[in-house]
Structures are given as structure tokens and as C-alpha cells.
């Protein structure tokens, strides 16, 4: 017995897939921009971290490390978006209960967890790098947990569980299809 997903669901999935791919294109552009002009990254991160350089220059090594860190964080987002696009493609093609969809769900979950880990690591690493060259007493190491980090952990865990449950559902359906 084959049950199709409603047309509205498949259309919504197709739209979301397109949006995911657009987001990937925008983020790739952002990654290139940061790599070409690291000043953009510093202008954004310094006020957010509450660090005042006080006229100090940041070395090229530190800038390069910050860019590498930012690109790593962007990679976790790109990884999540890529698997989201794959998942929406499965739903758009009416292949919700397939190993491919379950695989994509688990990887979206893993991507969210990776984003949470990147968010947690970014704060201490960035503050340490940006204040490493500061005079004694002004060096800083801070650790921050935001509600969005916690949200990513919960969303990631949930998606991984849903992926595992989908795998179970696929196995059950395959077993059920062998019965008359």
C-alpha cells in the first residue's frame, strides 16, 4: 500500500529546499567575503564580545586564526543547510519514509549539535586570541552559553531521535509490506 504525501506538503518542501539552497549560496558568499576582507569579521565580533582594542593592532596570525574559526563555524551551518536541502528534496519527491530521508534527518541533527559546539567554543577562543597581545591585566578569557546554543542542542538531539525513529518506521514498513 502506497500513501502519498499531500501535494501541499510536497510543494512546501520544494519551496523550503530552494530556500535552503539560497541560504547556502549566501553563506558561501559571506565566507568568501570574510576570507578576502577579515576586517568585516573583526568589525562584527569585537563589539559583540565587548572587547576594546584601545588602538592595539591585531597580528596577521591572530586574524588568520579568527578567520579560520569563523569559516569553521560557517561550515557547520552549511553542513546543516545541505542536509536540510536533501531532506526537503526527499519530502518534495514523496520519499519521506526512505533511508535517504532518515540519513538526512540524522545529519541535520548532527549539524545543529555541531553549531551549538561551535557557538560554545567561539566565545573563549575569540576572546583569548583578541586579548593575547594586550598588556598584563587586560588579557581575557570568557565563556558564554546563550539560549540559542541550548536551542541548537535540543533541536539537534530531537532531529537525531526523529531520524532514528524514521529508520525504525522504514524497517517496520518493509516488514509489513511482506505480509498479505
Amino acid at each position: 500500500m502506497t500513501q502519498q504525501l499531500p501535494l501541499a506538503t510536497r510543494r512546501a518542501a520544494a519551496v523550503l529546499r530552494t530556500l535552503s539552497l539560497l541560504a547556502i549560496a549566501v553563506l558561501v558568499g559571506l565566507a568568501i567575503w570574510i576570507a578576502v576582507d577579515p576586517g568585516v569579521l573583526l568589525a562584527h565580533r569585537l563589539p559583540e564580545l565587548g572587547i576594546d582594542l584601545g588602538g592595539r593592532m591585531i597580528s596577521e596570525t591572530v586574524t588568520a586564526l579568527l578567520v579560520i574559526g569563523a569559516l569553521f563555524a560557517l561550515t557547520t551551518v552549511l553542513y546543516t543547510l545541505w542536509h536540510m536541502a536533501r531532506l526537503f528534496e526527499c519530502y518534495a519527491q514523496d520519499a519521506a519514509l526512505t533511508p535517504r530521508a532518515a540519513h538526512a534527518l540524522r545529519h541535520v541533527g548532527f549539524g545543529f549539535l555541531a553549531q551549538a559546539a561551535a557557538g560554545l567554543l567561539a566565545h573563549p577562543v575569540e576572546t583569548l586570541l583578541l586579548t593575547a597581545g594586550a598588556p598584563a591585566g587586560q588579557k581575557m578569557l570568557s565563556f558564554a552559553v546563550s539560549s540559542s546554543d541550548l536551542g541548537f542542542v535540543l533541536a539537534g538531539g530531537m532531529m537525531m531521535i526523529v531520524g532514528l525513529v524514521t529508520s525504525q518506521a522504514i524497517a517496520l514498513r518493509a516488514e509489513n509490506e511482506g505480509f498479505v
Partner: protein
Amino acid sequence: MQIVVRLDVMLARRKMRSRELSERVGITEQNISLLKSGKVKGIRFETLARICDVLECQPGDLLEALPDGEM
């Protein structure tokens, strides 16, 4: 041990065609064919009961347990 389906034997005894059985039981002729050839993992009690009802037989008339390798 393997379970062999003797549906073709019972159909022949009742002089009934697969199509008629499928219509009266309410499952597809394709599934009847799969059942006859033993290419199914299992049969629901509900389906078995309907087949027995239509063919006026017992489940034991349709299913037979044989040692592995013996057909």
C-alpha cells in the same frame, strides 16, 4: 523448518480460480499469486480467516510445515 503454502491445492479441490478467490477475500490477485508461490514473509490472521471462510477449510489445509530443503 519451513512453512509451505498449499493454496493452489485447495483452489484446485474447490475448482476455484485465483481471481474469484481474490474478489471474495478482498485482496489483490497479485497478493494471491505471491501467497501461492510462497513469496511472502507472512499472512495476517485476518486474511487467513477470510481465505478459510471462502474455501471452507482449516488453516492446516493451507499451511504445511516441512523440514528445510524438502518441498
